[in-house]
C-alpha cells in the first residue's frame, strides 16, 4: 500500500500547486488546495441548494457569493465534502449579523466569526466540543471557519491592507468553530434557546474581537465564580460604547456548579448582567467617560451597566471544553449577536 502511495503522489506537484495558489494571491498565508470542477461537484452534491443560489452578500461592496463560490472556498480550505452544509449554514448565520453585513470584515477591530454548532452533526463530522475546543487538531473545527475566511478574501475581495483594515486583528481569526458540549451541559443548548427544535443540527455565529480566560478552578461557591465573570466582563479595555455585548464559553464544571446551586442559564445571565458595570468616574479615569452620549453628562457615581439587558443575544452562554480544569472564556462581540441559530439543511 505504502509503495502504491509513493507512486501515486508526487510531492513536487503538490508543492507546485501550492506555490501557484500563493502566487495568485488566493490564500490566507497557509497552503490551500486547488478547486477543480470535479472537487466542487463533490461538495455541491451534499446540498439540495442550487449552485447559483446567493449564499451571502455584502451590501456596501454590492458583491454576492453563490453556493458554488462557497464550495470553491470550502475545497480550498481543506474541508471534506460533508462539511459543506455546515459552511453554508454558517453563512446563513453570519448573514443575520448586522456587523457582518455592515462592514465587519473591513473593520479595524479585525474580528473573527465564532461559529457554534449544535446537534447530532457534531458527532457525524467529528466537530470537537470537548477538550481543546478552541485549539488546533480537529479538521472540521479548523477548516469550516477557514472556508468562511477564504470566501471573504476571494469571493468578496476583502483582503488585508486593501478593503480590510484590521489594526491588529484577532488571534485565530478564521479558526473559530466549536461544537457546544451539549452532553456535559446541565442546560438546553444554544440552538434551543434560539428556537430550534431539540435534536436538530444548527449553526449560530457572531463576530468576536478577542477571548479572555476566567481560570477559576479552586472555587468553593457559585457566587465566587459568577463574581469572577463579572470582573472580567466589566473590564474597561473592551469597552468602546454605552454597552459591550459579551459572550461566555462556559466550562462544563462551572456550568454544573451553577446548576447544582439551582440556577438556570437565564439565572446566571441575570446575576451577571445585574452586577457588571462601571461608574462614570471609573470610566473617565481611563479616558472612556460616556458623558458625551445622549442622556449625559453623567454624575461621577452614575453607574453604566456593561450589558444592555439579560437576553441570550446580549450575553450568549455556550458550554464547551473539558472539565479537567475549570477554565472558561469571555469573548467580546463586535456588534450584537442576532440571537438566531440556523438549521443545517
Amino acid at each position, binding site marked *: 500500500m505504502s509503495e502504491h502511495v509513493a507512486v501515486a503522489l508526487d510531492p513536487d506537484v503538490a508543492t507546485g500547486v501550492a506555490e501557484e495558489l500563493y502566487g495568485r494571491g*488566493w490564500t490566507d498565508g497557509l497552503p490551500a488546495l486547488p478547486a477543480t470542477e*470535479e472537487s466542487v461537484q463533490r461538495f455541491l452534491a451534499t446540498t439540495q441548494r442550487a449552485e447559483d443560489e446567493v449564499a451571502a452578500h455584502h451590501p456596501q461592496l454590492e458583491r454576492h457569493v453563490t453556493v458554488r463560490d462557497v464550495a470553491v472556498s470550502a475545497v480550498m480550505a481543506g474541508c471534506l465534502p460533508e462539511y459543506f452544509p455546515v459552511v453554508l449554514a454558517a453563512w446563513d448565520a453570519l448573514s443575520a449579523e448586522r456587523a457582518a453585513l455592515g*462592514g465587519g470584515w473591513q473593520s479595524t477591530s479585525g474580528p473573527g466569526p465564532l461559529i457554534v454548532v449544535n446537534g447530532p452533526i457534531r458527532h457525524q463530522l467529528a466537530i470537537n466540543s470537548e477538550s481543546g475546543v478552541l485549539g488546533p487538531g480537529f479538521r472540521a473545527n479548523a477548516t469550516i471557519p477557514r472556508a468562511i475566511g477564504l470566501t471573504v478574501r476571494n469571493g468578496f475581495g476583502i483582503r488585508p491592507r486593501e478593503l480590510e483594515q484590521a489594526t491588529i486583528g484577532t488571534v485565530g481569526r478564521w479558526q473559530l468553530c466549536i461544537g457546544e458540549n451539549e452532553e456535559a451541559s446541565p442546560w438546553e443548548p444554544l440552538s434551543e434557546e434560539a428556537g430550534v427544535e431539540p435534536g436538530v443540527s444548527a449553526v449560530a455565529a457572531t463576530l468576536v474581537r478577542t477571548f479572555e480566560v476566567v481560570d477559576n478552578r479552586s472555587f468553593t461557591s457559585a457566587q465566587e465564580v459568577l463574581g469572577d465573570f463579572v470582573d472580567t466582563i466589566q473590564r474597561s479595555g473592551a469597552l468602546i460604547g454605552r454597552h459591550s455585548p459579551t459572550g461566555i464559553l462556559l466550562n462544563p464544571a462551572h456550568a454544573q456548579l451553577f446548576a447544582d446551586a439551582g440556577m438556570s442559564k437565564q439565572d446566571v445571565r441575570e446575576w451577571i448582567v445585574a452586577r457588571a458595570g462601571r461608574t462614570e468616574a471609573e470610566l473617565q479615569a481611563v479616558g472612556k467617560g460616556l458623558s458625551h452620549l445622549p442622556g449625559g453628562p453623567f454624575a461621577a457615581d452614575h453607574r453604566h451597566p456593561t450589558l444592555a439587558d439579560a437576553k441570550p443575544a446580549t450575553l450568549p452562554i455556550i458550554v464547551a471544553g473539558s472539565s479537567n480544569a475549570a477554565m472558561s472564556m469571555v469573548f467580546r462581540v463586535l456588534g450584537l449577536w442576532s440571537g438566531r441559530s440556523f438549521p443545517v439543511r
Partner: protein
Amino acid sequence: MTAEIIDPTQHFHASTAVTPTDAARPETLAGLRIGLLGNTKRNADSILDAIGARLADRHAQIALIPRTKTQFAMPLPVELVEELIRDCDVVVIGVGDCGSCSASAVADAIALESVGIPTAVICTDAFVQPSSAMAGLKGAPDFPYLLTAHPIANLTADGVEERGEQLAAQVEARLIGSTRTVAAA
C-alpha cells in the same frame, strides 16, 4: 491527469461597474443649502459643524442642513438619499476614520454625485487604502476625497475648530469644482 484550477476570484473580477459621473458644480456656495452628513463617529458632527460655520462666515445666505447616517458602514438608505436630494444643493460627508466607514463614505459620495449632488467627502489619512479601493470598486479610481490627519476621535474642542478651519477651504474648492483635490495616491 490534469484538471483546470478554478479561479476563486472570478466572480468579482467579472463585475462591470458603470463609470460614475460627477455632478455639475455651482459657481459659488452663496445662497446654497449645504448638507452636513455625519456618520456618528466621534467628533464627526463637530468637525462638520465647524466646517459649516466657516463656510457660512464666507458666504451670504448659506443654510446648513445637518443629517446623520446612523449605520456608518452601510450604504445610504434610499429615504436619506431622497431627503438629501430634496433638502440640499451640496453635501459634505464625514468623517471616514475607520476601515469600513471610510470606504462607505467614499461610496456615498460617488452615489450622491451620480444623482446630481456635488459632494466633498472627508477621510482620515490612515485610511487611504480602503478609500481608494472603494473608489476603484465603484468605477471611479481617481475620485477625489479630502484627507485629514488621523486620529480625530480624541481632538479637543479647540482641535476640532482648527481642523474645521483647515478643511473649509478644501471643501469649498471641491464643492465648486475650482480645483481637483485628488487625494488618492
